[in-house]
């Protein structure tokens, strides 16, 4: 018999067969009868007033079915952190007063083919009055800078955080240092482009949107709001998603326009798809950030205080700005038990493209700044960086100064284990020239991550439904959005285990707002933890319903029964009483007629972040990890070669070890790209490298050996002890590499990406100093 406890095993992905056979359907593949091609008209200016839009010529073009501008809309703004931060709701689906970046949407067309749609765009006359623009966050904050919205000094989001007495603590320090770190923008570069199909049903006034999205329910909410419709009349369906990484977490004007154009063209479906250049230029990007940090430390290695400023270039609209700033700042306190901390976070509007969510939110940027800074502090007092971190890292069962409750916490074990498997003691600080001018070094970075965050709604619930049919088939309905990370598989594993049946029995139906329960979406590493708990609860409920019938029939106490390995068993003796199939048939039989429909939901015990103070327990649990990089630096060419990464991760418990390792490997390689070369570049607000040939992402030849080890802390809240982990492995990578470079050649690069030119310049600088 097949094993029926898939939890903790690397079972094959539930969707892998269709994917390797080319039968997995993405919205990208979808074609509907009568489908039109939709296209967006975007602003060519970074900042301009819209004087007039004339669409008459475009409308007359044969083959054009509809043209829309803001005049066809109710003119309602949307934002992504609407519930707690209403002041960040700042974007119209189609702008009509002003455009604020190159790419801002002003109109859209639907036509019978691509060529006609393109031609129609060129026939729309928009009269702009150009306004002065600002492209740097620092400039934008200065008095007199062009006002992009109404926010004072263009600061759209601020988060002042102060705990303890940092000034006094700095004075009492044995060593104080100041550093400034610069982080560049980057692209998600998911391989499936952003794509959606909207269809309006005239007879019912309802719309359906198929979208390549990480958050169907969030789109539904924004769509209903901006179209002034009931949420019940908006149906969002997700199919397979070809990668997201945070880039598909919001409603985009193209989603909105696909539906609106469909309405205007009499209900024909309208497909909107970005080409690669548009994905790079007009979707979302990573926040470029500046960290100015000043911290102090005692001789014994205790960090006394950390102070400073975090400035993020948010681009034209707020998007997930509050989440990014919160994630950036709270990260400091998840990782280190700081008592005195003062950080001022500002997310600043500029006329650059919109910065938004991307794997790790602001955590990747913070990871680089904190972890590089910590290494420099350690060196300042002559302490080993591993020792230094062990001294200051957070502990299990503690509450941080800002009231985050860290229950299970394997951070210190992660650090120790990473040091052990990497041979840290033997390698660190040992000068090693492997070839003339080529030096080896080792460096560490540590990180912590949330499992969801209460930033989107008053609750953070997810739900699941499990139905067991008469023939014993098990269907799981979840609103969780698998975008490739494998959450459907994890959910099926959890359901199978809890219900006591084979994994192969479970079919999953995921993410259709009209059919599946609510789920806030795939972000902040929340799905395994939150949706996983919901699924577990649904399976428990279904199991109870089956056992009730069995207990009644066999005149036994339900407490004494369980389902395991596809059998209903007596709990104590383990004796099989009847098979799962027999039990299900019994439920559906003449005497009972009981349909088995289990339901479950889960709402983690969290509190929203108070943006006036930085307090709040944003996550139901926290994950931790340590990463160690070994690098080789060529002092002649400036080339950095990462030889190996060691990753030790407190994942609570791995539901599917292969999937977890896969997430870690994917994250690390993505981090490697961001550290060494990925750089979305802008000139006067225009992306200058919007192609894979110019924006390089890691290739197979850059694959590095990764040794990944789990620390199992069995989280008391997690399903089977599991925690989420989609983001954490990206956070410490850049610093681990930068610190390793310092170990190799004595230079600390403080601005990413670490290019050969920067290495050579820093080496030269060093030489001149000595």
């Amino acid at each position, binding site marked *: 018999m097949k094993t029926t406890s898939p939890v903790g095993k690397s079972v094959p992905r539930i969707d892998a*067969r269709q994917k*390797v056979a*080319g039968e997995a359907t993405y919205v990208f593949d979808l074609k509907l009868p009568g489908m039109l091609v939709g296209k967006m008209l975007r602003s060519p200016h970074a900042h301009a007033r819209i004087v007039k839009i004339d669409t008459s010529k475009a409308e007359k073009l044969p083959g054009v079915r509809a043209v829309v501008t803001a005049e066809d809309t109710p003119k309602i703004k949307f934002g992504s952190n609407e519930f707690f931060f209403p002041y960040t709701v700042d974007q119209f689906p189609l702008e009509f007063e002003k455009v604020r970046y190159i790419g801002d949407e002003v109109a859209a067309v639907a036509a019978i083919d691509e060529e006609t749609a393109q031609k129609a765009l060129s026939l729309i006359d928009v009269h702009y009055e150009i306004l002065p623009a600002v492209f740097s966050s620092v400039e934008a904050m200065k008095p007199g800078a062009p006002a992009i919205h109404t926010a004072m000094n263009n600061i759209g989001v601020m988060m002042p955080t102060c705990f303890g007495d940092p000034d006094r603590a700095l004075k009492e320090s044995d060593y104080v240092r100041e550093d400034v770190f610069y982080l560049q923008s980057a692209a998600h570069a998911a391989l*499936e482009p952003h794509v959606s199909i909207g269809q309006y049903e005239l007879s019912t006034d309802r719309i359906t949107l198929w979208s390549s999205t990480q958050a169907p329910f969030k789109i539904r909410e924004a769509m209903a709001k901006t179209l002034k419709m009931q949420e019940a009349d908006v149906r969002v369906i997700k199919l397979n*998603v070809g*990668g997201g990484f945070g880039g598909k977490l919001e409603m985009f004007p193209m989603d909105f326009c696909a539906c609106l154009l469909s309405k205007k063209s009499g209900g024909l479906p309208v497909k909107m798809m970005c080409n690669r250049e548009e994905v790079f230029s007009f979707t979302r990007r990573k926040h470029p950030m500046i960290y100015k940090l000043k911290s102090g430390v005692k001789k014994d290695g205790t960090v006394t205080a950390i102070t400073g400023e975090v400035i993020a270039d948010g681009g034209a609209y707020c998007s997930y700005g509050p989440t990014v700033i919160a994630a950036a700042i709270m990260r400091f306190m998840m990782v280190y038990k700081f008592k005195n901390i003062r950080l001022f976070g500002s997310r600043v509007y500029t006329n650059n493209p919109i910065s938004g969510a991307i794997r790790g939110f602001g955590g990747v940027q913070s990871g680089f700044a904190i972890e590089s800074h910590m290494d420099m502090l350690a060196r300042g007092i002559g302490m080993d960086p591993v020792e230094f971190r062990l001294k200051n890292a957070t502990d299990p069962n503690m509450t941080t100064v800002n009231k985050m409750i860290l229950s299970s916490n394997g951070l210190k074990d992660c650090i120790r284990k990473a040091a052990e498997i990497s041979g840290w003691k033997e390698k660190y600080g040992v000068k090693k020239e492997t070839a003339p001018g080529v030096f080896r070094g080792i460096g560490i970075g540590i990180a912590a991550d949330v499992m969801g965050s209460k930033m989107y709604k008053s609750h953070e619930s997810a739900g699941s439904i499990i139905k067991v049919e008469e023939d014993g088939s098990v269907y799981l309905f979840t609103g969780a959005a698998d975008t490739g990370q494998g959450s459907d598989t994890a959910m099926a594993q959890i359901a199978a285990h809890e219900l006591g049946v084979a994994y192969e029995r479970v079919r999953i139906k995921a993410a259709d707002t009209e059919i599946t329960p609510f789920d806030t979406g795939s972000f902040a590493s929340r799905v395994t933890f939150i949706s996983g708990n919901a699924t577990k609860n649904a399976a428990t409920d279904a199991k109870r319903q089956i056992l009730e019938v069995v207990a009644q029939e066999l005149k036994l106490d339900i407490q004494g029964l369980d389902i395991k390995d596809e059998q209903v068993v007596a709990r104590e003796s383990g004796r099989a009483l009847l098979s799962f199939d027999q039990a299900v048939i019994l439920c559906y039989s003449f005497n009972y007629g009981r349909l088995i429909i289990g339901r479950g939901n889960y709402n983690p015990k969290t509190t929203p972040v108070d943006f006036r103070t930085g307090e709040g327990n944003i996550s139901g649990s926290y994950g931790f990890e340590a990463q160690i990089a070994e690098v080789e630096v060529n002092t002649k060419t400036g080339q950095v070669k990462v030889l190996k990464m060691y990753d030790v991760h407190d994942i609570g418990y791995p539901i599917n070890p292969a*999937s977890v390792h896969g997430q870690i490997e994917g994250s*690390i390689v993505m981090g490697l790209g961001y550290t060494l070369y990925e750089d979305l570049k802008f000139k006067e607000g225009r992306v200058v490298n919007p192609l894979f040939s110019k924006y390089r992402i890691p290739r197979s030849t850059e*694959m590095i050996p990764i040794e990944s080890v789990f620390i199992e802390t069995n989280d008391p809240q997690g399903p089977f002890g599991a925690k989420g982990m989609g983001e954490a492995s990206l956070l410490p990578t850049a610093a681990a590499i930068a610190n390793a470079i310092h170990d190799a050649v004595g230079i600390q690069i403080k601005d990413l990406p670490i290019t050969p030119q920067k290495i050579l310049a820093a080496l030269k600088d060093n030489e001149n100093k000595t």
Partner: protein
Amino acid sequence: MKTVTLDVNGKVFCLDVPDGELLIETLRDRLGFLGTKYSCLEGDCGVCTVLADGKNVLSCLMLTVEAEGRKITTIEGLGQKDLHPIQQAFIDEGAVQCGFCTPGMILASKSLLDAHPSPTQDEVVHALDGNLCRCTGYVRIVNAVLSAARKMKKTP
């Protein structure tokens, strides 16, 4: 317009296509082989990889008229009911995440293994250099290709 005879996955199709039509367009839009994806249409990502006479080519750079007389294989032709050992290895090794790069990746691997049945890791890595994957970090993909090579040698 030109009339072309195309051999795709062993089936012969006779079509009228514009001279400038790309193979990817013909495969997806005319013939419905949706397993072939694309991501850039610029020759930069490898997602649109298919086989022409057993060699991997980018279907976004090849004109349909150029495909005439060559045996084109898409992922659908490799195996759907009975999977090819490479497809199976991708499942077994956990090499599939979002799956968008997968068809192209598998076909590029097939082209490699047909020419070099026992490649070294280095050879695999180089053969797949033109196929981007944003999800996996390549580790499991390379393992899958190596494991498929071993299995295929055992059961020729």
